[in-house]
């Protein structure tokens, strides 16, 4: 198995984690909250899609679309109802709020969707191999990767070139000043939460077929998405994406080198060291406060 195969194998998780991490960093920058509930919301989206597919026989594309749209609205809803009302809460408190949401949803999912463990079908079951059969690559993997790349690229382009993107960056830089400049920060943060919910759901849709559908299925994605943000730096948009590329590749490389059990330890050790040396992340900028 060569480096190329490792990279191909990593593409799946690069896609999933970069979507998750985009959601996390978007919310962090616009509402200064570390969203522990990112993947939980995504999980709900996953559940909606699978339930529609398997229980109600809704065609695949439609169920995906409904799930994504629903979670977009759900994200907006959470921002409008909970986060907005917690203006005065400290950052630690806001983290706690998102944790509360995690617990709430963990409890609600079985209630709403039932306790039956479901299976999600892949986007496509074909496996592509190259001529000499040395490399293999699943279609599902490819579709997922392309989807993620397109979505992320689209969001990046919007961020950089559209008026909306400018508003987001302004709000991220300083919400009060942005408000004074006439930017409706409430819509900005609401939409950010919505987008986070939507891309998270997309990640769930890619990830769900690879595992069992349980309420806690995306916990590891949440943690890795979070770690990607840490590695890349919460204060930039490109950093977390780079982090989302590094982490799966690193894991697979370590696995390839034979130390399968040490995969996660190495990753966390690397992150630990990075934060120790450069707390702001690889791409982060230090915000100096005047004493």
């Amino acid at each position: 198995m060569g480096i190329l195969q490792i990279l191909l194998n990593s593409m799946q998780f690069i896609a999933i984690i970069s979507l998750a991490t985009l959601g996390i960093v978007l919310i962090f920058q616009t509402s200064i909250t570390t969203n522990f509930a990112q993947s939980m919301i995504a999980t709900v989206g996953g559940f909606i899609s699978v339930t529609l597919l398997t229980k109600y026989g809704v065609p695949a594309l439609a169920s995906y679309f409904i799930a994504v749209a629903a979670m977009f609205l759900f994200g907006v809803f959470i921002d409008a109802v909970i986060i907005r009302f917690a203006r005065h809460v400290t950052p630690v408190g806001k983290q706690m709020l998102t944790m509360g949401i995690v617990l709430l949803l963990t409890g609600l999912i079985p209630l709403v969707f039932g306790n039956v463990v479901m299976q999600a079908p892949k986007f496509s079951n074909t496996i592509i191999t190259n001529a000499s059969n040395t490399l293999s690559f699943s279609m599902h993997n490819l579709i997922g990767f392309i989807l993620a790349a397109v979505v992320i690229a689209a969001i990046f382009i919007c961020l950089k070139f559209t008026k909306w993107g400018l508003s987001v960056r302004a709000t991220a830089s300083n919400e009060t000043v942005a408000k004074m400049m006439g930017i409706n920060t409430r819509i900005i943060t609401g939409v950010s939460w919505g987008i986070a919910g939507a891309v998270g759901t997309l990640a769930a849709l890619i990830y769900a077929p690879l595992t069992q559908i349980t309420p806690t299925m995306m916990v590891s994605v949440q943690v890795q998405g979070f770690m990607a943000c840490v590695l890349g730096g919460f204060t930039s948009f490109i950093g977390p994406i780079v982090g989302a590329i590094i982490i799966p590749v690193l894991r697979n490389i370590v696995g390839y080198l034979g130390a399968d059990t040490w995969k996660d330890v190495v990753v966390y050790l690397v992150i630990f060291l990075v934060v120790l040396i450069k707390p702001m992340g690889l791409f982060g900028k230090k915000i100096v406060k005047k004493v």
Partner: protein
Amino acid sequence: MGQSIALRIKRVLKHPLSSFVILGIVLLLVNVFYRAGIIQDIAFVRSVARVIIYSIVAMGFSLLLGYAGLASLGTSGLIGLGAFLIQLTYSQKGIPMVISILICLVIALVVGALIGFISLRIEGMYLAIITLCLSTILVELFRIGWGTDTFNLPRFQTFFGKEFPGYSSDGGLLVRDVMYYILVPLFVIVAMLTSNLMRSPAGRAMLAMKDSDSAAKAMGISVLKYRLIAFIIATVYAVFAGCLYMFYFRSTTYTDWGLALSLNILAAVIVGGSKSLLGCILGCFIIFGIDGMFLQNIPFFQNNTNFIYIISGALIIIVVMFYPGGLAHLWLDLKILIRKLKLKWRHYKYGD
């Protein structure tokens, strides 16, 4: 004559440490009632023991969060560290109980100091992330070192030379009972020590450090020293609780010590009130106790095991949004409200 005795009792009760002693007595009675057959289910007692053990962690955490203002998500890894170290020293190497615990505490001291030094470079959220990484690394090490099996402590038949029957007996103390009767006084002692510390110059220094770094330094408080103290205490408490966990529950596996536990302890402390010890204990009771103690017996909750999460999740959200001071704060507000109502009543009746 009777009046002065009543006054004396009142004065003793007002002492801040008395509430812990009373709590300790109540907890001891739990096991007594169990042995006497009043409480039927062993799961109830086990739940109480679990709450007690996590409360010890929460108290250290409360000192860290509520007094020193330092965030740490590494608690679960540290408790697990205690449990696994006991496995290593007591079970595998056969080192007697008290010495194993002492070894664990020394290691905890070193780890706590390490984290304390790290905390000087890293602030706020990033500190939480680093401790999270640390905790995850520890848990991974557990998985690598001890595998995915559950680890059991061999039943100890002798205890300081006295023989105790194992798990089947009629009359006479079981080992499990002995551990419980050791657990409760230790818990009360830890609570009293922590309460003392909070009401001493060190506690005030930590609050000063939390509210205003510069003012604290100008008043002679060494930020390094007190951060170290806060982290060392929190770590030692967590590891100590882990040791106690291992001795009481006698089995563990690496999945016990995931992120979820850290978050739950954080939640318990915040829900209860980050500066109040009784609040922490209450928070632990709500988050870790109610499920095992009461709800397991109600069919609705048995079928929907995840329902408890809805309650704790909703509770966290409500407390953070409306009562950032936690339930302890709620209690104070209640007292103020009662006083206000009393005044209103007086005004109504006497027209003051």
